[in-house]
């Protein structure tokens, strides 16, 4: 694994060469190989067998008794039978990371069908994998940002975040001129006209680290780094221990403390399994670089919405991309570099 093509300074803190979806820049050669599986993963690999085996084992368990009784009931209607059948299959499905393509299509079908049964509306949910030779990165121009927060609103609408608790992935920090990047004294919750005199603005969100501490600590591998560098969460596999939240140095993760509420007419129906599909209570979520958009070749919603052009998103492996031009021609820096997390989110000034 060579680091030659890396466009940023790397600490090489021994961790960079053990992830399966590596962000080393070249997707050829050893990097595209899967990592050697350890004991649990080897067993996990036969995911179909495991699932069916587990179904048998737990068939008698009390926990599923309700679902069984209604799905086997002769009295209840076809729809409610189908509903509980879906619930049953969804409860016992495996980790998305280890699913076969067939499994992925099945669960996506179940989720869209379940939404249709509940609301009568159709969803468009994708399970598109990362493309070859793509590694996403992001750059933020501190000189341009005026703190309008259009990015925040666009993000909330695009990603179906809980309206009740006003969950936001992006935080815009208002900083005083002449004090440098002083986060302690900055305000990330302002309600006044912007740009305020004598202030500048700086946005933070999930930095999609190349060496993400949140991924390391997850006890069930419910969060991982995809091949295109996006750090994602399987919302159905997360057990809600919030260890990743404690491990994130950038405040990039959010937790659903209660059932998220999104009014039906505001639901963005263009979804991705790992992205903006509707979440449930008790699971983590975070910025996914709008995976449902970026994997279709579009910019994330925040980039699109920014009226000042301070946000740039693109493929780090494409020498002709804007992001590469910025990295090569601007004095870029990243936050808390001393922690060795290797964020794929750079800041620069004009």
């Amino acid at each position, binding site marked *: 694994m060579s680091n030659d093509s890396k466009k940023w300074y790397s600490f090489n803190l021994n961790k960079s060469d053990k992830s399966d979806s590596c962000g080393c820049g070249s997707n050829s050669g050893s990097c595209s190989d899967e990592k050697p599986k350890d004991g649990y993963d080897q067993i996990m690999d036969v995911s179909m067998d495991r699932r069916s085996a587990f179904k048998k084992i737990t068939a008698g368990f009390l926990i599923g008794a309700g679902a069984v009784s209604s799905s086997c009931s002769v009295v209840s209607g076809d729809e409610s039978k189908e509903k509980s059948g879906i619930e049953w299959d969804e409860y016992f499905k495996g980790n998305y990371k280890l699913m076969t393509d067939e499994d992925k299509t099945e669960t996506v079908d179940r989720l869209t069908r379940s939404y249709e049964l509940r609301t009568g509306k159709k969803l468009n949910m994708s399970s598109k994998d990362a493309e070859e030779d793509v590694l996403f990165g992001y750059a933020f121009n501190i000189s341009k940002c005026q703190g309008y927060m259009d990015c925040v609103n666009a993000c909330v609408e695009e990603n179906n975040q809980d309206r009740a608790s006003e969950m936001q992935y992006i935080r815009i920090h208002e900083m005083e001129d002449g004090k440098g990047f002083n986060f302690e004294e900055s305000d990330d919750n302002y309600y006044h006209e912007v740009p305020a005199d004598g202030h500048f603005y700086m946005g933070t969100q999930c930095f999609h680290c190349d060496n993400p501490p949140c991924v390391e600590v997850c006890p069930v591998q419910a969060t991982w780094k995809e091949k295109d560098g996006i750090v994602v969460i399987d919302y159905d596999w997360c057990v809600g221990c919030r260890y990743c939240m404690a491990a994130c140095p950038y405040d990039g993760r959010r937790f659903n403390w209660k059932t998220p509420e999104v009014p039906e007419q505001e639901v963005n129906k263009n979804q991705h399994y790992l992205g903006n599909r509707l979440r449930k209570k*008790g699971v983590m979520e975070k910025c996914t670089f709008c995976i449902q958009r970026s994997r279709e070749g579009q910019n994330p919603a925040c980039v699109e919405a920014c009226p000042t052009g301070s946000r740039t998103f693109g493929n780090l492996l494409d020498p002709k991309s804007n992001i590469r031009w910025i990295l090569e021609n601007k004095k870029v820096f990243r936050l808390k570099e001393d*922690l060795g997390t290797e964020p794929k989110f750079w800041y620069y000034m004009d």
Partner: protein
Amino acid sequence: MKTLRVFRSLIKDGFLEVTHGSRAYHIWMAVLSFIMLFGMYNYSIQLEEGLSATGMTDRVSWGLYISNFTFLVGVAAAAVMLVLPAYVLKNIDFKQAVLIGEGLAVAALCMCLAFVVADMGGPARLWHMLPVIGVFNFPNSMLTWDVLVLNGYLFINITIPMYILVMRYQGKVPNPKIYIPGVFLSVFWAVGIHMITAFLYQGLQARPFWNNALLGPRFLASAFAAGPALIIIVLAIIRKFTAFKVPDNTIKKISMIVTVAAQINLIMLISELFKEFYAPTHHSISAVYLFFGLEGKTALLPWIWTSISLNVVATVALTFHKVRSNLKILYVLCGMLFIAIWIEKGFGLIVPGFIPGPWGKIAEYTPSLVEISVTLGIWAMGAFIFTILAKTGIAVELGQIVYKKK
């Protein structure tokens, strides 16, 4: 087959034993049951509403549950302080205390596991962590290590006393060749559970307050002060209410352990305070919040200063042989030390880790009533489990329940 029959008979006799007792005993168990039920009712509210029923937020995402979990791992680990001399060094004095100590470890571990489950956002999905059918992020995640060592420790601490009790129950002498290796294992294991629980926090570069090399050793020192302190109090109660004989000498020896551990703990506290406040850096800001408050946010101040004063007074007093030898005073000092460490290693450690947040945001944490009730319920559950174990164990030890061959 025979062992099974003996075991079944022991369970039956044990059941009779724990359902009969003095009026005080029945009141005690009734009160515990009531608190447990109240806790369960509150947990059902939490299940229904989600963790928003607690005081935790995105800013302070671990609270009372994880604090108590951390502290109780220490109490569980401390049981070995009694196991070691009793079994290996053939110190007769300690033997009675050991069964009590291991019973305490089992109860503490059950509470630990209950606190972790209570803290989960999706307890129904916990099967994702089971081997074979789930995905276990071992060895990368320290949490998986902790799951392994805690359950292993629970297993060891159930099997060793169980073997001894089953043998005594039949009027036989337990064979040291069978249980001594287990005892050795549990000694190393106990250090392990505590170090690994410390590593859980210590390994997070995101939280400078925890990311310090002293955390593990300090966990051990405080555990070996708080755990035996609790055992002394429990022994005092047992001595008073049952026929179980615990000589003064045993309690005095345990108090020696408490004293040394408390002294070491105090030295480490001083070392930590020196590092944070002699040349304060950005990373000291959580400590500033904990001890002095930040921007008028001072929720932890009364707690931590209570803890430190109790800690210092108890440790200094314990250091004097004359004071320590007076059992009445000793019990009070042990109680003080226990509370001091519960604060210091509980929310005095967990909450400041999150304050200020990664971008300097200072948002305080106040546990909700639901959270406090669930916590009380789990503590009552621990006391309930311990009472059952101790009562059966004592009855077997005293020869009150014996296996009758038919």
